[in-house]
C-alpha cells in the first residue's frame, strides 16, 4: 500500500516542493491545486472546473485502451467535485507517422480510443493540440483535459468529515486490472511490454456514462457528503486522502467489494485500478435516495465501510484486521531532493541561408505534419454534443463554449517540445503564452490555467534541471500576466525503452478564458475584401525549434522564442479591447510557422487572399525568411474594416503596443512583399489543399 501511495505518480515525491512556487490564487479561484480539479467562479453562482491528466505509459502499450481510460480518468476528477463534464481537450505527441509504422499504429488507435470513449459518454472533445517528433516514437504522450460546470453550492469535496457516515463503492467491479499501475507509470516503460500485462485496463464508457448521470442526479438529494474518484493507487490512495482531509479515519471490509475474480487478494483489491469506480461518502442516516438513484441507472453500489474518528485506515477481511495505518502518514509522503545540472550548449549556431523560393517553403510548412490541419483527428470526435460548442475545433484558435450563466468559456491547450528541448524555461513560459494568445484571439480574457509537465527520469540530473527550468518558466510567466495555476500534473520517466533516451521535455498549458455576457467574439478568418490587415507585436530573430528549421533544414537549434509577460499583458489586453469595441473583424495569433503561416491561415476560412507589404512591420534586423518564419511570441494578425482603421490604430498606440498596417484582404492568392520585392505568391486553393491533407497523406490515405 505504501508502495502505491508513495509512488511518484500519486504523490509527487520529486516535484512537490517546486510546484509550490507556482502562483495559485486569484479572484476567481475557488479551489486550487491539491484537489481533484481546480474550480473557478464564473459568476452568478456558476462554477467552472478544470483538470488535466496523462495516460502515457498505458497508451504506449495499449494505445486504444490506454487513451480511452485516460479520458475516463479525467472525467472522474471533474465529476468527483460535483461538476458536470462539458468538454474534453486532448494533447497528443507521437513519432513521425509519415515514416514509422509503429507511430501510425499508436496514433490511429489513440485517436480512436479518445473518440470512442468521449463520444459514448456524451462529452464533446472541443479542442486539442498535436506534435510529431521522433523522441516520442516509443513513448507517445496522451494528455487529456476536462472542463466541468456546476453550481457553487453543489461542490463536493474529497473528504470524509463525519464519523458514522457510510462509505460506498459505486460503479464497475474490482478486478486485478491496473494492479501496480501507479507504480508502473512511475517507472520507465519496461523493455518487454508484454510482461506488464496486468496494467492493461478495459475501458467501459457506457458504465462511465451511467456513473456520470446517476451521480449528478444523486447530488441533488443532498445525501452525498464527500466523493473521491478511484484513480492511480486505487483505494489505498483514495481512503487516506478523504480521511486525512476530513480529519477522520475509515474502516472498511474488503469482502464487501464486488470482485470480478474470486481470488483477488486483499492487497490487490486495495491497489486495484479498475476503471469506472467512484467512492461516495453518504450521510449516516439519509442515504436511501442516493442509493436508489444509482440502482435506477443500473450502477452497482455497495456499502464497503464507514467513517471513524480514530484517524486510522483500517482494512478488514471479514472479521480479521489485515491493515491499520494512520491516514495522515499515508497521505503525506516524504519529499526527495534531486540533483540538477544544466547541460552544456554550444553557442556557435549560425543561421543557414534560406532557400530562394519562399512560396515553396511556405507551402511545405503548411503541409508539414506539425503545422498541417487536424481535421482527420477532430472529425472523429463528437464536438457538438451538449449544444454548447460555439467555436468548434478547426474553426478558431480556441474553442468557445456556452455556459449556463450566459457567459462564454474559451479553452485551448498548447505545448512546444522543440522549443522546450532547446530551452525549457522559454518553452514552458512560451506554451502558457501561446495558450493565452489563442484564448485572447477569440475575444476571451484568460482567467486560469492548468499545466502538465512531462519529462524523462528525474534521477537524471539534466532531466531534472529541465523540469526545474520549466516550473520556473511557468511560474514567472503566470505571475507576470496575473494568471493563477489551479491544477496540473507531472509525468516523469517518459523515455524510449529501446534507446533509453528521454522524450523532449513537454510542458503543456491549458488556459481558460471568459467572454462576458453580450460581448463580442471573433474567429481567425479574413472576412471582407478590402479590410485592412494589421500586424500587432514585434518580430525578433527567434527561429530556435521553429517549424521552418525542422521542415527546411531538419535541425532544431538556435535561440528559442522567449515571451515577455509584461509586453504580452499589454498586447493581450489591447487586442481584447479591439474586439470588444467591435473594431476587429478577425483575430489570429502567430505561432508555429510564424507570421507567414498565420497569414496563410487567415486566408483559409472564406478563401479570401491578401496583399501584404512587410516594410513597416515592427521587427529587429533580419533577413526576409527569418521575418516570415520566426516564431516570436506576442504577435497577432487582425483585420479591420477601413473606416475603423484610425480608431483601431489610436487604441493600439495609446496602449503602447507595436503594430503596423501591413496589407489588404482580397484576391485569390496570398502575396507577401518586403520593400517592393515579392517574397511569397501562393493560391489560397493551394494553401487549403496543402494544409488539409497533411495527416491523410502521412497515413497513406487518399483524401
Amino acid at each position, binding site marked *: 500500500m505504501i508502495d502505491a501511495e508513495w509512488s511518484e505518480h500519486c504523490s509527487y515525491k520529486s516535484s512537490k516542493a517546486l510546484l509550490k512556487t507556482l502562483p495559485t490564487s486569484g479572484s476567481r479561484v475557488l479551489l486550487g491545486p491539491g484537489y481533484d480539479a481546480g474550480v473557478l467562479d464564473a459568476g452568478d453562482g456558476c462554477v467552472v472546473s478544470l483538470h488535466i491528466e496523462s495516460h502515457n505509459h498505458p497508451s504506449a*502499450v*495499449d*494505445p*486504444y*485502451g490506454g487513451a480511452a481510460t485516460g479520458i475516463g480518468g479525467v472525467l472522474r476528477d471533474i465529476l468527483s467535485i460535483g461538476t458536470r463534464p462539458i468538454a474534453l481537450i486532448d494533447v497528443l505527441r507521437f513519432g513521425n507517422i509519415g515514416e514509422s509504422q509503429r507511430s501510425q*499504429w499508436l496514433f490511429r488507435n489513440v485517436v480512436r480510443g479518445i473518440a470512442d470513449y468521449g463520444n459514448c459518454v456524451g462529452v464533446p472533445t472541443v479542442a486539442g493540440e498535436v506534435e510529431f517528433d521522433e523522441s516520442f516514437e516509443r513513448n507517445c504522450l496522451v494528455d487529456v483535459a476536462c472542463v466541468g460546470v456546476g453550481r457553487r453550492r453543489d461542490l463536493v469535496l474529497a473528504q470524509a468529515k463525519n464519523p458514522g457516515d457510510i462509505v460506498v463503492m459505486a460503479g*464497475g467491479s474490482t*478486478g*486485478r*486490472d491496473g494492479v501496480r499501475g501507479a507504480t508502473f507509470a512511475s517507472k520507465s516503460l519496461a523493455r518487454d*511490454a*508484454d510482461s*506488464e*500485462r496486468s496494467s*492493461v*485496463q*478495459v*475501458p*467501459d464508457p*457506457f*458504465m462511465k456514462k451511467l456513473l456520470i448521470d446517476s451521480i449528478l442526479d444523486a447530488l441533488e438529494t443532498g445525501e452525498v457528503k464527500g466523493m473521491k474518484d478511484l484513480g492511480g493507487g486505487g483505494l489505498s490512495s483514495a481512503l487516506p486522502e478523504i480521511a486525512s482531509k476530513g480529519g477522520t479515519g475509515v474502516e472498511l471490509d474488503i469482502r464487501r467489494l464486488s470482485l*470480478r*475474480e474470486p481470488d483477488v487478494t486483499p492487497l490487490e483489491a486495495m491497489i486495484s485500478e479498475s476503471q469506472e469506480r467512484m467512492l461516495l461518502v453518504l450521510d449516516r442516516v439519509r442515504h436511501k435516495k442516493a442509493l436508489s438513484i444509482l440502482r435506477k441507472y*443500473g450502477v452497482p453500489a455497495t456499502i464497503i465501510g464507514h467513517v471513524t474518528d480514530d484517524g486510522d485506515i483500517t482494512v478488514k477481511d471479514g472479521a480479521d484486521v489485515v491493515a491499520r495505518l494512520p491516514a495522515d502518514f499515508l497521505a503525506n509522503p516524504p519529499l526527495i531532493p534531486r540533483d540538477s545540472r544544466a547541460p552544456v550548449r554550444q553557442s556557435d549556431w549560425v543561421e543557414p541561408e534560406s532557400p530562394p523560393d519562399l512560396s515553396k517553403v511556405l507551402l511545405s510548412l503548411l503541409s508539414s505534419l506539425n503545422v498541417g490541419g487536424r481535421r482527420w483527428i477532430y472529425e472523429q470526435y463528437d464536438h457538438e454534443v451538449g449544444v454548447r460548442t460555439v467555436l468548434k475545433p478547426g474553426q478558431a484558435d480556441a474553442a468557445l463554449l456556452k455556459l449556463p450563466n450566459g457567459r462564454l468559456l474559451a479553452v485551448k491547450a498548447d505545448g512546444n517540445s522543440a522549443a522546450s528541448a532547446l530551452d525549457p524555461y522559454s518553452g514552458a513560459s512560451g506554451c502558457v503564452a501561446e495558450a493565452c494568445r489563442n484564448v485572447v484571439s477569440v475575444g476571451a480574457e484568460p482567467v486560469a490555467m492548468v499545466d502538465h509537465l512531462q519529462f524523462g527520469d528525474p534521477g537524471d540530473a539534466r532531466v531534472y534541471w529541465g523540469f526545474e527550468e520549466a516550473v520556473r518558466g511557468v511560474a514567472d510567466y503566470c505571475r507576470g500576466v496575473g494568471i493563477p495555476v489551479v491544477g496540473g500534473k507531472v509525468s516523469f520517466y517518459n523515455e524510449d525503452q529501446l534507446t533509453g533516451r528521454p522524450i523532449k521535455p513537454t510542458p503543456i498549458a491549458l488556459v481558460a478564458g471568459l467572454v462576458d455576457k453580450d460581448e463580442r467574439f471573433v474567429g481567425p478568418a479574413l472576412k471582407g475584401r478590402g479590410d485592412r490587415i494589421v500586424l500587432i507585436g514585434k518580430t525578433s530573430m527567434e527561429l530556435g525549434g521553429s517549424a521552418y528549421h525542422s521542415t527546411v533544414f531538419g535541425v532544431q537549434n538556435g535561440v528559442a522564442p522567449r515571451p515577455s509577460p509584461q509586453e504580452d499583458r499589454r498586447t493581450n489586453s489591447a487586442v481584447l479591447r479591439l474586439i470588444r469595441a467591435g473594431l476587429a473583424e478577425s483575430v489570429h495569433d502567430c505561432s508555429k510557422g510564424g507570421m507567414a503561416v498565420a497569414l496563410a491561415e487567415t486566408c483559409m476560412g472564406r478563401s479570401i487572399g491578401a496583399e501584404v507589404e512587410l516594410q513597416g512591420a515592427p521587427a529587429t534586423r533580419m533577413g526576409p525568411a527569418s521575418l516570415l518564419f520566426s516564431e516570436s511570441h506576442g504577435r497577432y494578425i487582425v483585420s479591420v474594416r477601413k473606416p475603423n482603421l484610425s480608431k483601431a490604430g489610436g487604441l493600439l498606440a495609446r496602449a503602447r503596443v507595436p503594430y503596423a498596417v501591413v496589407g489588404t484582404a482580397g484576391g485569390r492568392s496570398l502575396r507577401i512583399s518586403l520593400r517592393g520585392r515579392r517574397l511569397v505568391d501562393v493560391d489560397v486553393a493551394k494553401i487549403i489543399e496543402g494544409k488539409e491533407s497533411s495527416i491523410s497523406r502521412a497515413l497513406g490515405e487518399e483524401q
Partner: protein
Amino acid sequence: MIISNKAAAKDPEGDVIYQDLVKSRFSQAESVRVGKLLRFKVKAAGSLEAQRLVQTMCDELRIYNPAAHQCHVSPGRLSE
C-alpha cells in the same frame, strides 16, 4: 482468427448484452462474451501452413494487440 479481450479482462460489451438483452428472456443463458473474427483467405500448401501463415501475419501486422487481446487462429471450415 478470433480476437477477444484477455480472459481476466473485462468484457463490458458481452456483459451488457447478457444483462440487458438476454438474461431476462432466456434463463438458460449464463454468459455472453464478445470477440472479433477475421477470416483470411490464403494460398498455402495445407491447413497447418495456412494456420502458421495467418498467425505470422497477425503478429507482424499488429492485427491484435498482445498486451490487451488474446488471439486464436484456427483453420476455416466455416462456409464463406
